[in-house]
Protein backbone atom coordinates (compact mmCIF):
# COMPACT_ATOMS: atom_id res chain seq x y z
CA UNK A 1 0.00 0.00 0.00
CA UNK A 2 2.79 2.37 0.85
CA UNK A 3 4.51 1.46 -2.43
CA UNK A 4 1.32 2.20 -4.39
CA UNK A 5 0.96 5.63 -2.78
CA UNK A 6 4.65 6.34 -3.44
CA UNK A 7 4.21 5.44 -7.14
CA UNK A 8 1.01 7.51 -7.51
CA UNK A 9 2.77 10.52 -5.96
CA UNK A 10 5.69 10.24 -8.36
CA UNK A 11 3.39 9.92 -11.38
CA UNK A 12 1.43 12.99 -10.26
CA UNK A 13 4.62 15.04 -9.84
CA UNK A 14 5.92 14.00 -13.28
CA UNK A 15 2.57 14.80 -14.87
CA UNK A 16 2.49 18.20 -13.20
CA UNK A 17 5.92 18.96 -14.63
CA UNK A 18 5.39 17.62 -18.15
CA UNK A 19 1.80 18.60 -18.91
CA UNK A 20 2.26 22.42 -18.95
CA UNK A 21 5.26 22.07 -21.26
CA UNK A 22 3.31 19.78 -23.56
CA UNK A 23 0.37 22.16 -23.51
CA UNK A 24 2.68 25.05 -24.35
CA UNK A 25 4.13 23.18 -27.29
CA UNK A 26 0.63 22.39 -28.51
CA UNK A 27 -0.43 26.03 -28.34
CA UNK A 28 2.73 27.14 -30.15
CA UNK A 29 2.09 24.58 -32.88
CA UNK A 30 -1.43 25.90 -33.35
CA UNK A 31 -0.43 29.61 -33.50
CA UNK A 32 0.60 30.99 -36.93
CA UNK A 33 4.34 31.34 -37.38
CA UNK A 34 5.51 34.99 -37.50
CA UNK A 35 5.84 36.13 -41.11
CA UNK A 36 9.43 36.43 -42.30
CA UNK A 37 10.43 40.04 -42.89
CA UNK A 38 12.01 40.34 -46.31
CA UNK A 39 13.98 43.32 -47.59
CA UNK A 40 15.11 43.74 -51.19
CA UNK A 41 18.29 45.72 -51.70
CA UNK A 42 18.58 46.99 -55.24
CA UNK A 43 22.10 48.25 -55.92
CA UNK A 44 21.63 50.63 -58.84
CA UNK A 45 23.31 50.24 -62.24
CA UNK A 46 26.05 47.64 -62.83
CA UNK A 47 27.78 45.93 -65.75
CA UNK A 48 28.10 48.22 -68.74
CA UNK A 49 26.13 50.94 -66.94
CA UNK A 50 28.57 52.71 -64.58
CA UNK A 51 26.20 55.70 -64.15
CA UNK A 52 27.64 58.69 -62.27
CA UNK A 53 31.27 59.25 -61.36
CA UNK A 54 32.00 59.97 -57.72
CA UNK A 55 35.12 61.74 -56.50
CA UNK A 56 36.46 61.51 -52.98
CA UNK A 57 38.65 63.94 -51.03
CA UNK A 58 41.87 62.55 -52.51
CA UNK A 59 40.54 62.98 -56.05
CA UNK A 60 40.01 59.27 -56.62
CA UNK A 61 37.09 58.65 -58.96
CA UNK A 62 34.71 55.74 -58.41
CA UNK A 63 31.79 54.65 -60.55
CA UNK A 64 28.34 54.91 -58.99
CA UNK A 65 27.75 51.20 -59.63
CA UNK A 66 30.69 50.32 -57.35
CA UNK A 67 29.48 52.64 -54.59
CA UNK A 68 25.92 51.29 -54.65
CA UNK A 69 27.14 47.70 -54.52
CA UNK A 70 29.37 48.48 -51.53
CA UNK A 71 26.46 50.11 -49.70
CA UNK A 72 24.21 47.17 -50.55
CA UNK A 73 26.73 44.66 -49.14
CA UNK A 74 27.21 46.71 -45.99
CA UNK A 75 23.49 47.05 -45.42
CA UNK A 76 22.86 43.37 -46.16
CA UNK A 77 25.17 42.35 -43.33
CA UNK A 78 23.49 44.71 -40.87
CA UNK A 79 19.99 43.55 -41.78
CA UNK A 80 20.90 39.86 -41.67
CA UNK A 81 22.35 40.42 -38.22
CA UNK A 82 18.97 41.82 -37.19
CA UNK A 83 17.15 38.70 -38.35
CA UNK A 84 15.82 39.98 -41.65
CA UNK A 85 15.82 38.00 -44.87
CA UNK A 86 17.66 40.02 -47.49
CA UNK A 87 17.33 39.61 -51.25
CA UNK A 88 19.73 41.52 -53.48
CA UNK A 89 19.13 42.30 -57.13
CA UNK A 90 22.83 41.97 -57.88
CA UNK A 91 25.80 40.66 -55.94
CA UNK A 92 28.49 41.59 -58.45
CA UNK A 93 29.27 43.88 -61.35
CA UNK A 94 26.52 42.67 -63.66
CA UNK A 95 23.91 44.53 -65.69
CA UNK A 96 20.35 44.10 -64.41
CA UNK A 97 17.45 45.66 -66.31
CA UNK A 98 14.79 47.68 -64.43
CA UNK A 99 12.24 45.00 -65.34
CA UNK A 100 14.40 42.25 -63.84
CA UNK A 101 14.87 44.29 -60.68
CA UNK A 102 11.10 44.69 -60.33
CA UNK A 103 10.66 40.99 -61.03
CA UNK A 104 13.07 40.06 -58.21
CA UNK A 105 11.29 42.38 -55.79
CA UNK A 106 7.88 41.03 -56.80
CA UNK A 107 8.90 37.39 -56.47
CA UNK A 108 10.44 38.02 -53.05
CA UNK A 109 7.12 39.46 -51.77
CA UNK A 110 9.24 41.95 -49.88
CA UNK A 111 8.02 44.22 -47.11
CA UNK A 112 10.53 46.87 -48.17
CA UNK A 113 12.70 47.58 -51.18
CA UNK A 114 15.50 50.10 -51.25
CA UNK A 115 16.89 51.15 -54.62
CA UNK A 116 20.38 52.42 -53.86
CA UNK A 117 22.06 55.24 -55.79
CA UNK A 118 24.82 57.80 -55.25
CA UNK A 119 25.57 61.22 -56.66
CA UNK A 120 27.93 64.17 -56.31
CA UNK A 121 25.15 66.77 -56.53
CA UNK A 122 23.26 68.03 -53.51
CA UNK A 123 23.98 67.01 -49.96
CA UNK A 124 23.00 64.31 -47.48
CA UNK A 125 20.60 61.59 -48.52
CA UNK A 126 17.81 62.01 -51.08
CA UNK A 127 14.74 59.83 -50.62
CA UNK A 128 12.48 59.50 -53.65
CA UNK A 129 9.23 57.64 -54.01
CA UNK A 130 7.34 57.04 -57.22
CA UNK A 131 5.39 59.99 -58.61
CA UNK A 132 2.58 57.70 -59.75
CA UNK A 133 -0.79 58.58 -58.28
CA UNK A 134 -1.85 56.18 -55.53
CA UNK A 135 -4.20 53.49 -56.78
CA UNK A 136 -6.39 51.13 -54.79
CA UNK A 137 -4.82 47.79 -53.91
CA UNK A 138 -4.67 45.55 -56.95
CA UNK A 139 -7.26 42.86 -57.37
CA UNK A 140 -7.60 39.91 -59.70
CA UNK A 141 -10.43 41.63 -61.56
CA UNK A 142 -8.26 44.63 -62.36
CA UNK A 143 -4.74 43.55 -63.22
CA UNK A 144 -2.09 46.16 -62.55
CA UNK A 145 -0.08 47.39 -65.54
CA UNK A 146 3.55 46.38 -65.22
CA UNK A 147 4.90 49.91 -65.81
CA UNK A 148 2.72 51.35 -63.04
CA UNK A 149 2.66 48.47 -60.55
CA UNK A 150 4.02 50.78 -57.87
CA UNK A 151 0.79 52.84 -57.97
CA UNK A 152 -0.88 50.32 -55.63
CA UNK A 153 1.99 50.65 -53.16
CA UNK A 154 2.65 54.37 -53.23
CA UNK A 155 1.01 55.04 -49.87
CA UNK A 156 3.07 52.30 -48.20
CA UNK A 157 6.19 53.61 -49.94
CA UNK A 158 5.52 57.11 -48.62
CA UNK A 159 5.22 55.71 -45.09
CA UNK A 160 8.46 53.79 -45.54
CA UNK A 161 10.16 56.97 -46.78
CA UNK A 162 8.90 58.73 -43.65
CA UNK A 163 10.46 56.08 -41.39
CA UNK A 164 13.76 56.24 -43.30
CA UNK A 165 13.69 60.04 -43.16
CA UNK A 166 13.25 60.04 -39.36
CA UNK A 167 16.08 57.58 -38.82
CA UNK A 168 18.51 59.45 -41.07
CA UNK A 169 17.72 62.82 -39.49
CA UNK A 170 18.13 61.20 -36.08
CA UNK A 171 21.58 60.05 -37.22
CA UNK A 172 22.49 63.65 -38.10
CA UNK A 173 22.24 63.27 -41.87
CA UNK A 174 20.32 65.92 -43.83
CA UNK A 175 17.55 64.47 -45.96
CA UNK A 176 15.70 65.61 -49.08
CA UNK A 177 12.36 63.88 -49.67
CA UNK A 178 10.68 63.95 -53.06
CA UNK A 179 8.85 62.07 -55.76
CA UNK A 180 10.08 61.23 -59.21
CA UNK A 181 9.59 59.02 -62.26
CA UNK A 182 12.14 56.25 -61.89
CA UNK A 183 11.74 53.09 -63.99
CA UNK A 184 13.59 51.10 -61.30
CA UNK A 185 10.81 51.53 -58.74
CA UNK A 186 7.72 52.29 -60.85
CA UNK A 187 7.31 48.60 -61.68
CA UNK A 188 7.91 47.28 -58.16
CA UNK A 189 4.96 45.70 -56.37
CA UNK A 190 6.12 46.38 -52.82
CA UNK A 191 6.87 49.40 -50.63
CA UNK A 192 9.82 50.89 -52.50
CA UNK A 193 12.03 53.92 -51.98
CA UNK A 194 14.92 55.13 -54.13
CA UNK A 195 17.72 56.30 -51.91
CA UNK A 196 20.50 58.50 -53.26
CA UNK A 197 23.57 59.17 -51.15
CA UNK A 198 25.07 62.60 -51.84
CA UNK A 199 28.17 64.16 -50.24
CA UNK A 200 27.85 65.25 -46.65
CA UNK A 201 28.67 68.95 -46.58
CA UNK A 202 31.23 70.37 -44.19
CA UNK A 203 28.61 72.22 -42.15
CA UNK A 204 26.77 68.98 -41.50
CA UNK A 205 29.59 66.83 -40.24
CA UNK A 206 32.68 68.94 -39.74
CA UNK A 207 34.26 67.67 -42.97
CA UNK A 208 33.29 66.89 -46.52
CA UNK A 209 32.34 63.25 -46.99
CA UNK A 210 32.07 61.65 -50.40
CA UNK A 211 29.42 58.96 -50.94
CA UNK A 212 32.33 56.54 -51.40
CA UNK A 213 33.70 57.25 -47.90
CA UNK A 214 33.39 53.99 -45.89
CA UNK A 215 32.67 55.78 -42.60
CA UNK A 216 29.91 57.84 -44.18
CA UNK A 217 28.46 54.73 -45.82
CA UNK A 218 28.54 52.90 -42.46
CA UNK A 219 26.68 55.77 -40.84
CA UNK A 220 24.03 55.76 -43.52
CA UNK A 221 23.73 51.96 -43.40
CA UNK A 222 23.31 51.96 -39.61
CA UNK A 223 20.55 54.54 -39.86
CA UNK A 224 18.81 52.56 -42.58
CA UNK A 225 19.05 49.35 -40.58
CA UNK A 226 17.51 51.09 -37.57
CA UNK A 227 14.72 52.41 -39.78
CA UNK A 228 13.98 48.97 -41.19
CA UNK A 229 13.84 47.48 -37.68
CA UNK A 230 11.20 50.09 -36.87
CA UNK A 231 9.41 49.37 -40.16
CA UNK A 232 9.34 45.66 -39.27
CA UNK A 233 7.87 46.46 -35.87
CA UNK A 234 5.15 48.57 -37.50
CA UNK A 235 4.43 45.84 -40.05
CA UNK A 236 3.97 43.26 -37.29
CA UNK A 237 1.57 45.52 -35.41
CA UNK A 238 -0.76 45.64 -38.42
Amino acid at each position, binding site marked *: MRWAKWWLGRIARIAAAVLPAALGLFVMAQAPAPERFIVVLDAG*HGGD*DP*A*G*RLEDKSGKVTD*EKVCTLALSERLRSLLAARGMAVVTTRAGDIAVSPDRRAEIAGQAKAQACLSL*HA*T*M*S*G*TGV*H*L*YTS*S*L*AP*ASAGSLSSPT*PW*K*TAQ*ASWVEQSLKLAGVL*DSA*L*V*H*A*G*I*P*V*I*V*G*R*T*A*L*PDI*DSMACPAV*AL*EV*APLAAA*DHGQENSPTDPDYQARVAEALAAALVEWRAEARKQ
Partner: protein
Amino acid sequence: MIPRYQVVIFVVLLVASLAMSAELWHLRDRAHKRLLESENTAPTQAPEVTPPEPATLEAASDADSSITPRVFELPLPRSPGARARAVLGKLLDLYAAPGSRHPVPGGAGSVSQVFLLPAAPTAASAPVGGLKTGSPEGATDSGDELAVVNLTGAFVAGHPSGIETETLTVLSICATLNANQPRITKVRFLVDGKPRATLAGHVDLTRTYLAGEAAPAVASGQP
Protein backbone atom coordinates in the same frame (compact mmCIF):
# COMPACT_ATOMS: atom_id res chain seq x y z
CA MET B 1 25.75 99.82 -162.09
CA ILE B 2 23.57 98.34 -159.34
CA PRO B 3 20.04 97.81 -160.38
CA ARG B 4 17.44 99.93 -158.53
CA TYR B 5 15.45 96.99 -157.22
CA GLN B 6 18.59 95.61 -155.51
CA VAL B 7 19.19 98.92 -153.73
CA VAL B 8 15.61 98.95 -152.49
CA ILE B 9 15.92 95.37 -151.19
CA PHE B 10 19.22 96.23 -149.46
CA VAL B 11 17.72 99.23 -147.70
CA VAL B 12 14.66 97.28 -146.59
CA LEU B 13 16.80 94.45 -145.21
CA LEU B 14 19.08 96.90 -143.41
CA VAL B 15 16.15 98.65 -141.77
CA ALA B 16 14.65 95.27 -140.78
CA SER B 17 17.92 94.04 -139.26
CA LEU B 18 18.34 97.26 -137.27
CA ALA B 19 14.77 96.99 -135.99
CA MET B 20 15.30 93.35 -135.01
CA SER B 21 18.56 94.25 -133.25
CA ALA B 22 16.78 96.91 -131.24
CA GLU B 23 14.00 94.47 -130.31
CA LEU B 24 16.56 91.82 -129.32
CA TRP B 25 18.39 94.34 -127.12
CA HIS B 26 15.08 95.24 -125.46
CA LEU B 27 14.15 91.58 -124.82
CA ARG B 28 17.60 90.89 -123.38
CA ASP B 29 17.20 93.76 -120.92
CA ARG B 30 13.80 92.51 -119.82
CA ALA B 31 15.08 88.96 -119.31
CA HIS B 32 18.04 90.23 -117.32
CA LYS B 33 15.74 92.25 -115.04
CA ARG B 34 13.46 89.24 -114.48
CA LEU B 35 16.47 87.09 -113.55
CA LEU B 36 17.72 89.63 -111.04
CA GLU B 37 14.29 89.89 -109.45
CA SER B 38 14.00 86.10 -109.01
CA GLU B 39 17.42 85.92 -107.30
CA ASN B 40 16.65 88.66 -104.84
CA THR B 41 16.45 86.97 -101.39
CA ALA B 42 16.44 90.10 -99.34
CA PRO B 43 13.47 90.33 -96.95
CA THR B 44 10.57 92.22 -98.37
CA GLN B 45 9.94 93.65 -94.91
CA ALA B 46 12.41 94.89 -92.40
CA PRO B 47 12.85 92.46 -89.42
CA GLU B 48 10.65 93.36 -86.51
CA VAL B 49 12.48 93.92 -83.23
CA THR B 50 10.18 92.74 -80.47
CA PRO B 51 10.35 94.67 -77.25
CA PRO B 52 11.55 92.77 -74.16
CA GLU B 53 8.77 91.31 -72.08
CA PRO B 54 8.75 89.53 -68.71
CA ALA B 55 9.40 85.79 -68.82
CA THR B 56 9.30 83.56 -65.75
CA LEU B 57 12.04 80.96 -65.46
CA GLU B 58 11.49 78.25 -62.85
CA ALA B 59 15.12 77.84 -61.84
CA ALA B 60 16.32 74.77 -59.94
CA SER B 61 18.82 74.64 -57.11
CA ASP B 62 20.70 71.48 -56.17
CA ALA B 63 21.56 72.76 -52.69
CA ASP B 64 18.03 72.57 -51.34
CA SER B 65 16.36 70.71 -54.21
CA SER B 66 14.10 73.69 -54.83
CA ILE B 67 12.58 75.30 -57.92
CA THR B 68 12.00 79.03 -57.61
CA PRO B 69 10.56 81.50 -60.15
CA ARG B 70 12.87 84.19 -61.53
CA VAL B 71 11.58 86.89 -63.84
CA PHE B 72 13.67 88.15 -66.77
CA GLU B 73 12.98 90.69 -69.52
CA LEU B 74 13.44 88.83 -72.80
CA PRO B 75 12.67 89.66 -76.45
CA LEU B 76 10.46 86.72 -77.38
CA PRO B 77 9.21 85.58 -80.80
CA ARG B 78 5.48 85.65 -81.51
CA SER B 79 5.25 82.03 -82.64
CA PRO B 80 4.31 79.89 -79.58
CA GLY B 81 6.77 77.10 -80.43
CA ALA B 82 9.67 79.46 -81.00
CA ARG B 83 8.67 81.36 -77.87
CA ALA B 84 8.78 78.20 -75.77
CA ARG B 85 12.17 77.31 -77.23
CA ALA B 86 13.54 80.79 -76.49
CA VAL B 87 12.39 80.64 -72.87
CA LEU B 88 13.89 77.17 -72.35
CA GLY B 89 17.08 78.36 -74.02
CA LYS B 90 17.40 81.14 -71.46
CA LEU B 91 16.74 78.65 -68.64
CA LEU B 92 19.46 76.31 -69.89
CA ASP B 93 21.81 79.30 -70.32
CA LEU B 94 21.31 79.98 -66.62
CA TYR B 95 22.23 76.38 -65.80
CA ALA B 96 25.33 76.50 -68.00
CA ALA B 97 26.58 79.79 -66.53
CA PRO B 98 29.53 79.74 -64.09
CA GLY B 99 28.36 79.58 -60.48
CA SER B 100 25.02 78.05 -61.43
CA ARG B 101 22.98 76.58 -58.57
CA HIS B 102 22.03 73.71 -60.87
CA PRO B 103 25.09 73.21 -63.07
CA VAL B 104 24.25 71.56 -66.38
CA PRO B 105 26.44 72.16 -69.44
CA GLY B 106 24.92 72.88 -72.82
CA GLY B 107 23.10 76.19 -72.78
CA ALA B 108 20.45 77.53 -75.14
CA GLY B 109 21.50 75.37 -78.08
CA SER B 110 20.50 72.24 -76.14
CA VAL B 111 16.86 72.61 -77.15
CA SER B 112 16.57 71.77 -80.85
CA GLN B 113 12.84 72.35 -81.18
CA VAL B 114 9.66 72.65 -79.16
CA PHE B 115 6.56 71.32 -80.91
CA LEU B 116 3.11 72.20 -79.62
CA LEU B 117 0.26 69.75 -80.20
CA PRO B 118 -3.32 69.53 -78.95
CA ALA B 119 -3.31 67.57 -75.70
CA ALA B 120 -5.70 64.84 -74.62
CA PRO B 121 -7.85 65.64 -71.57
CA THR B 122 -6.28 64.70 -68.28
CA ALA B 123 -7.69 61.56 -66.71
CA ALA B 124 -9.10 61.85 -63.23
CA SER B 125 -6.58 59.30 -62.04
CA ALA B 126 -3.61 61.19 -63.39
CA PRO B 127 -0.53 60.67 -61.28
CA VAL B 128 0.74 63.46 -59.08
CA GLY B 129 4.15 65.03 -58.93
CA GLY B 130 4.17 65.95 -62.57
CA LEU B 131 3.72 62.52 -64.10
CA LYS B 132 1.07 60.99 -66.26
CA THR B 133 1.13 57.47 -67.59
CA GLY B 134 -1.68 57.38 -70.12
CA SER B 135 -1.54 58.06 -73.83
CA PRO B 136 -1.12 61.81 -74.28
CA GLU B 137 -2.01 62.38 -77.88
CA GLY B 138 -5.43 63.16 -79.29
CA ALA B 139 -7.26 66.32 -80.15
CA THR B 140 -9.47 67.98 -77.60
CA ASP B 141 -11.54 71.11 -77.28
CA SER B 142 -10.01 72.07 -73.94
CA GLY B 143 -7.29 74.15 -75.60
CA ASP B 144 -4.61 72.40 -73.59
CA GLU B 145 -1.38 71.76 -75.42
CA LEU B 146 1.25 69.08 -75.27
CA ALA B 147 4.78 70.41 -75.68
CA VAL B 148 7.27 68.00 -77.21
CA VAL B 149 10.74 69.18 -76.26
CA ASN B 150 13.47 67.87 -78.53
CA LEU B 151 16.79 67.98 -76.68
CA THR B 152 20.19 67.49 -78.27
CA GLY B 153 22.18 64.32 -77.66
CA ALA B 154 25.12 66.45 -76.52
CA PHE B 155 23.03 67.99 -73.73
CA VAL B 156 21.88 64.59 -72.47
CA ALA B 157 25.39 63.13 -72.71
CA GLY B 158 26.78 66.00 -70.64
CA HIS B 159 24.01 66.07 -68.03
CA PRO B 160 25.22 65.15 -64.53
CA SER B 161 23.97 61.75 -63.38
CA GLY B 162 21.73 61.56 -60.32
CA ILE B 163 18.09 61.24 -59.34
CA GLU B 164 17.90 64.69 -57.78
CA THR B 165 19.66 66.65 -60.50
CA GLU B 166 17.80 64.89 -63.33
CA THR B 167 14.45 65.34 -61.58
CA LEU B 168 15.12 69.05 -61.11
CA THR B 169 16.02 69.55 -64.77
CA VAL B 170 12.85 67.82 -65.99
CA LEU B 171 10.55 69.52 -63.50
CA SER B 172 12.03 72.98 -64.05
CA ILE B 173 11.58 72.65 -67.83
CA CYS B 174 7.95 71.58 -67.33
CA ALA B 175 7.26 74.36 -64.83
CA THR B 176 8.92 77.03 -67.00
CA LEU B 177 6.84 76.07 -70.04
CA ASN B 178 3.64 76.17 -68.00
CA ALA B 179 4.53 79.46 -66.31
CA ASN B 180 4.99 81.25 -69.64
CA GLN B 181 2.32 79.46 -71.67
CA PRO B 182 -0.36 78.16 -69.30
CA ARG B 183 -2.01 76.28 -72.20
CA ILE B 184 0.96 73.90 -72.09
CA THR B 185 -0.25 71.32 -69.58
CA LYS B 186 1.75 68.28 -70.67
CA VAL B 187 5.33 67.80 -71.70
CA ARG B 188 7.12 64.98 -73.45
CA PHE B 189 10.80 64.69 -74.28
CA LEU B 190 12.75 63.50 -77.28
CA VAL B 191 16.49 63.35 -77.73
CA ASP B 192 17.72 64.03 -81.26
CA GLY B 193 14.18 63.34 -82.42
CA LYS B 194 13.90 59.91 -80.80
CA PRO B 195 12.45 58.64 -77.51
CA ARG B 196 15.06 57.89 -74.85
CA ALA B 197 14.67 55.78 -71.70
CA THR B 198 16.27 58.10 -69.16
CA LEU B 199 17.84 61.55 -69.01
CA ALA B 200 21.22 60.49 -67.58
CA GLY B 201 20.62 57.00 -66.24
CA HIS B 202 17.86 57.69 -63.71
CA VAL B 203 14.78 59.79 -64.47
CA ASP B 204 12.28 58.40 -66.97
CA LEU B 205 12.07 60.35 -70.23
CA THR B 206 9.44 58.13 -71.86
CA ARG B 207 6.58 59.46 -69.70
CA THR B 208 4.27 62.39 -70.23
CA TYR B 209 4.77 64.98 -67.51
CA LEU B 210 1.96 67.20 -66.26
CA ALA B 211 3.50 70.64 -66.51
CA GLY B 212 1.25 72.40 -64.03
CA GLU B 213 1.78 69.94 -61.22
CA ALA B 214 5.54 69.74 -61.24
CA ALA B 215 6.55 69.70 -57.59
CA PRO B 216 10.15 69.57 -56.44
CA ALA B 217 11.41 67.64 -53.44
CA VAL B 218 11.35 69.19 -50.01
CA ALA B 219 14.06 69.29 -47.43
CA SER B 220 13.32 67.24 -44.36
CA GLY B 221 13.87 68.38 -40.77
CA GLN B 222 17.44 69.36 -40.11
CA PRO B 223 19.36 67.16 -37.69
